[in-house]
């Protein structure tokens, strides 16, 4: 599998990462290098091996349903570039 310039440009756009033309070219090369390596891994026959979700052997930790957090709007809003009362304020987004 390999990526063309347009796919990389589109992916960068979706990820909101700005890529200049010269960096875009470099990124196409780098990503295709990574994909070539993944293709090499794909040469190994793993059809009889269960997918590995974790190397630790741990199960997903869970918690009880109780309220243990929140109630600190000031902390949550500390880094907000702009606010109105208790709300974050952002440039107007209307679909």
């Amino acid at each position, binding site marked *: 599998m390999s990526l063309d310039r347009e796919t990389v440009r589109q992916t960068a756009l979706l990820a909101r990462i700005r890529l200049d033309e010269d960096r875009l070219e470099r990124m196409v090369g780098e990503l295709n290098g990574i994909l070539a390596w993944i293709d090499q891994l794909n040469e190994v026959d793993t059809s009889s091996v269960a997918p590995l979700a974790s190397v630790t052997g741990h199960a997903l930790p869970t918690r009880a349903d109780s309220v243990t957090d929140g109630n600190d709007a000031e902390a949550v809003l500390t880094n907000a570039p702009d606010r109105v009362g208790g709300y974050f304020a952002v440039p*107007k987004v209307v679909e």
Partner: protein
Amino acid sequence: MSTLVSGSTGDWEVVVGLEVHAQVRSESKLFSGASTRFGAEPNSQVSLVDAGMPGMLPVINRECVRQAVRTGLGLGAKINRVSVFDRKNYFYPDLPQGYQISQYTRPIVGEGSLRITMPDGERVVGIERIHLEQDAGKSMHDQDPSRSLIDLNRSGVALMEIVSRPDLRSGAEAAACLRTLRTLLRFLGTCDGNMQEGSLRCDANVSVRRPGGELGTRCEIKNLNSIRFLQQAIEYEAIRQVEVLEDGGKIIQETRLFDADRGETRSMRSKEDAHDYRYFPDPDLLPLELSEDFIAGIAASLPELPETRRNRFVSQYGIGEAEADFLVTEPEIADFFEALADGRDPKLAANWLTTELFGALNRAGLPLSKSPVDAGTLGGLIDLVADGTISGRSAKDVFSEMFETGQAAETIVDARGLRQLSDGAAIAALVDAVLAEHGDKVAEYRSGKVKLLGFFVGQVMKQTRGTANPQLVNEILRERLAG
């Protein structure tokens, strides 16, 4: 039978599938310990996990998992022993993480079904899957001229996305499906079903085709926040699509919004390909594995479901089917009825509840949960009618006052002197006095003018200010007049 839309070139069949977002009933959020309570001060129920701060790790709420499994079992669905959380990536200001934790290829619940009742019979609607995911925050665009305001209280609250098969054939069927699903969720206690507060939201996928033909291109109508709007939007959309196709046009797959004021759907944006969300397994979360014991424990504790309860009401209490349908629309109504019917005539209980109490509640615009009259109080009134303490007619007056004041029936009856006179000897004495006073009318009656009975009853009632037991009065009058 399905409802067809007839166009100028023939009939069209409407095909609808629903995606229902049901907020899980839980105290805290899916992956954080912040509260889920509705209506709190902005950003007061936000943990640093919900705010998407770097380095925060999600830890799943066991109860939310239990609720999803409970819902799956209620729909007779397959519970997946292993499911996986994925990141669905997109950018929007009310999604501070930049991705929603959801389930994509391996949801917690697989296929099930829901039976709905239409006027002409039952339908079985396939359920494709239920997955667990985080809700986003809330954006407000109309509070400030140049800025949008964001409240993250809802960010991270657990949602169940319940996806139906495209088995529905009209707006009315879709409405019945959502209504039935909401009732089921309420009985299960897994979602409060409150559409005004947004704890139940619905998207509809709508397409049209020639009857039995290949599926057409679908449009997705987003964020329908009432059952009525769901039905209206589907009916409008089906006709719009038929018109486009009959004019030789093509349906473009897109997302549309329902404008409730104008009763029409409008294009919102072309639907991003699923691919564009760049789903991948969330590296912060291991697969969710459910043990057989865990699932069996939930199955054993499932409450009686609405359909079962409805059928039991009909067979156990002998009430009508339509009445039983109404009584199981909400668990609170069903519980109220059973408390009221306990030790009383169930038909009488059902009648008082559905006619008198719900009549008064509807006039006052109150839900049953805010009723000033509880089952014990209403039962007290029914008992007073049953044992003859008050007449059926006074009972309605007592009920009106009870609804106003919340007082017990006995208290109102005593305060207003409504206790029915059921003492045979006392009534006989009154009857004799009335007959003695109206000797002429007695003679007329005996000569065949039997309609005068009503006059004598009226006289006795007048003497007792309406408290005499009318049956006894009638009986004694007939007996005396015959003599």
